[in-house]
């Protein structure tokens, strides 16, 4: 008994509006002409398409060593003998694993693209580096913090947190808030925080901590009635609404709820949860599709599926199936290596970069319904909360360092390009003329908000929330 009846009209006295009439007509026409498929479900089926512009935010948890990633140094120049002078020790010779080069990686030249303008740290590996033709690397970013949560939230929102509390919305929220995509789940945050400070609930990310959470949202209920009664329920719900229902549905709420229910039924009817059932056995309708994904991402066990490669496959599936427009994902971790060897950091980074390479390769090979490949419609930003000190500490690890780097890939971004640089002494964040990227002692630091503004501007979105101008030389 939670509310009182105020609607005095009753269903009898209500004049059915044009919308109700159209709904009823559409329901009748739909059930007549489309073999019983509810009309609205049919209409929405046409909308179940990938977003024209997709975004992936990839987080490397713990603070990466950028000497191993996107800001390498030549070990023949930055030697141990000169370390007291340069305050930089690449330490590539301490990795002692044949999978990692002992010097910065220059990928082989791609035909028609020209040689790579980007050199990569040994942890990046050839698999990702060969996609240099889609990349821009931003170096010398000043994080202004050495705290994990602060740096992480700074890069998520493009705003310096207050203390460690995030300010503003996540960039993914800002994007879906502005673009209002028609995909079922506009934004997915996979093991990453998400903030919304100025948009409606439609822009909220679905936060999942693992793939199973996403599947739970997409799959049908486990508590089912008899199939004929289920059909009766479906038909009953498809009937035209009466006046009282319309009154509660007035001014958006009921319409939104009704659309959400339709979307839910559509998603469930399409069995989208099965799209993430990567380890399905043979003799299932989607076995072949899953086998192809397993091969593409080298998934052989539940550990693989829940690991970096499985996460990359989840991102690709969410975008390609038109389930989400933005995915923010904690791809890999274990990077906060204050102790131990360079190999631990390199290994953990490599797992993430290899998975990212698989994702990029998949998106490059997959055609987008609007033309071109998915990479032509997708912008990827790869970041970590800060970097690690250019010198190795007495415990064999590296501590937190201010200067950072980031990788941007795909749509709206200039390709095969490096913007900014860190200093040759202690890898200090530099000052630049941000209009052209040239070093300028009287210039400005590159900050995370510049990178976020650039991502927003790359899609023609309003970036005024960042209160800075984008890095225009990066924009395609």
């Amino acid at each position: 008994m939670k509310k009182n009846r105020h609607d005095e009209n009753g269903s009898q006295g209500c004049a059915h509006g044009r919308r109700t009439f159209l709904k009823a007509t559409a329901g009748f026409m739909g059930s007549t002409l489309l073999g019983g498929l509810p009309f609205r479900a049919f209409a929405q089926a046409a909308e179940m398409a990938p977003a024209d512009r997709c975004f992936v935010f990839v987080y490397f948890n713990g603070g990466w060593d950028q000497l191993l990633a996107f800001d390498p140094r030549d070990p023949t120049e930055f030697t141990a003998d000169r370390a007291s002078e340069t305050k930089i020790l690449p330490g590539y010779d301490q990795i002692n694993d044949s999978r990692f080069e002992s010097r910065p990686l220059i990928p082989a030249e791609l035909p028609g693209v020209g040689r790579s303008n980007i050199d990569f740290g040994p942890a990046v590996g050839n698999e990702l580096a060969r996609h240099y033709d889609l990349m821009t690397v931003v170096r010398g970013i000043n994080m202004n913090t050495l705290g994990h949560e602060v740096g992480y939230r700074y890069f998520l929102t493009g705003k310096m947190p207050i203390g460690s509390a995030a300010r503003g919305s996540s960039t993914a929220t800002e994007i879906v808030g502005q673009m209002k995509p028609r995909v079922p789940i506009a934004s997915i945050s996979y093991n990453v925080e998400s903030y919304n400070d100025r948009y409606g609930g439609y822009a909220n990310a679905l936060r999942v901590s693992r793939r199973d959470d996403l599947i739970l949202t997409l799959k049908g209920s486990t508590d089912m009635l008899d199939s004929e009664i289920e059909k009766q329920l479906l038909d009953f719900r498809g009937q035209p609404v009466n006046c009282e229902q319309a009154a509660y549905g007035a001014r958006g709420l009921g319409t939104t709820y009704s659309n959400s229910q339709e979307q839910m039924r559509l998603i469930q009817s399409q069995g989208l949860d099965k799209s993430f059932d990567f380890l399905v056995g043979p003799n299932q309708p989607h076995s072949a599709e899953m086998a192809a994904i397993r091969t593409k991402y080298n998934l052989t066990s539940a550990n693989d599926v829940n690991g970096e490669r499985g996460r990359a496959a989840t991102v690709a599936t969410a975008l390609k199936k038109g389930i989400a427009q933005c995915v923010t994902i904690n791809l890999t971790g274990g990077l906060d290596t204050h102790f131990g060897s360079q190999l631990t950091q390199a290994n953990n980074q490599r797992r993430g970069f290899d998975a990212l390479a698989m994702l990029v390769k998949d998106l490059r090979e997959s055609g987008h319904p609007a033309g071109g490949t998915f990479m032509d419609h997708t912008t990827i930003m790869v970041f970590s909360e800060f970097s690690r000190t250019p010198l190795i500490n007495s415990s064999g690890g590296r501590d937190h360092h201010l200067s950072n780097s980031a990788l941007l890939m795909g749509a709206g971004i200039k390709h095969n390009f490096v913007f900014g640089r860190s200093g040759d002494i202690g890898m200090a964040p530099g000052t630049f003329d941000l209009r052209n990227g040239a070093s300028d002692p009287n210039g400005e630091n590159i900050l995370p908000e510049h990178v976020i503004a650039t991502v927003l501007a790359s899609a023609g979105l309003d970036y005024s929330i960042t209160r800075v101008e984008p890095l225009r030389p990066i924009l395609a």
Partner: protein
Amino acid sequence: MRRLVLTAALLALASGCTKDDAQSTGGIIEPIPNPHQPGDFTPLPDPEVQDGSVGRAPRRLTVAQLDAAIVGAVGQRWSELDSRATSMGRADYALVVSENTEPNLVFAKFLEDGARKVCINQASAEMRMTDASARTMGRLLPEKWDDLTKLTDAEVRAQLVYMSTRFWGSPLSGEELTKWTTFFTQAAARVQTLASSKRHETLAVVCIAMLTDPRFITY
């Protein structure tokens, strides 16, 4: 002396009464000032600009309200609600500082899950209760549910009016009650063809439909 004082007091009182009478007969009534000034209150929105609706727009229940409403309507708590509360909009005041009451896809999905869970469980439990007064939803149903198709039209209607009042605070009537009656009767007829373990599904399906109706989640 005493007599003099009493006389003076009577005269004083008499003169006071005479003065009041003179004022009222003069027809001057001081209006009571309006205690509300512009800016003291928010006027109702103009119905013209909101499709003729008067008053505020409907709101979705918060997760806490939903929890209590399910218990009140169905008679048992949805035990999985807490684990899904964040996705359904509950603020944790750490990362999310405001309750999200958008009836979005995730809310619709999880409410459907919850409705099925509690309605099927409760209907199944109530079917075994021979004391109708101990039931929450099926209070007007017979002691034994061997065959709900035997209920008269009036009995079905009474049950549906009771349930709709319980779920929405708004009894079904008119054409809509007829629609729900047909829905109930169809389900009851189908259930008769099923195993006896499925007898509770008539009540369960009506409960699911009412719990996922916009009238349940709005106020």
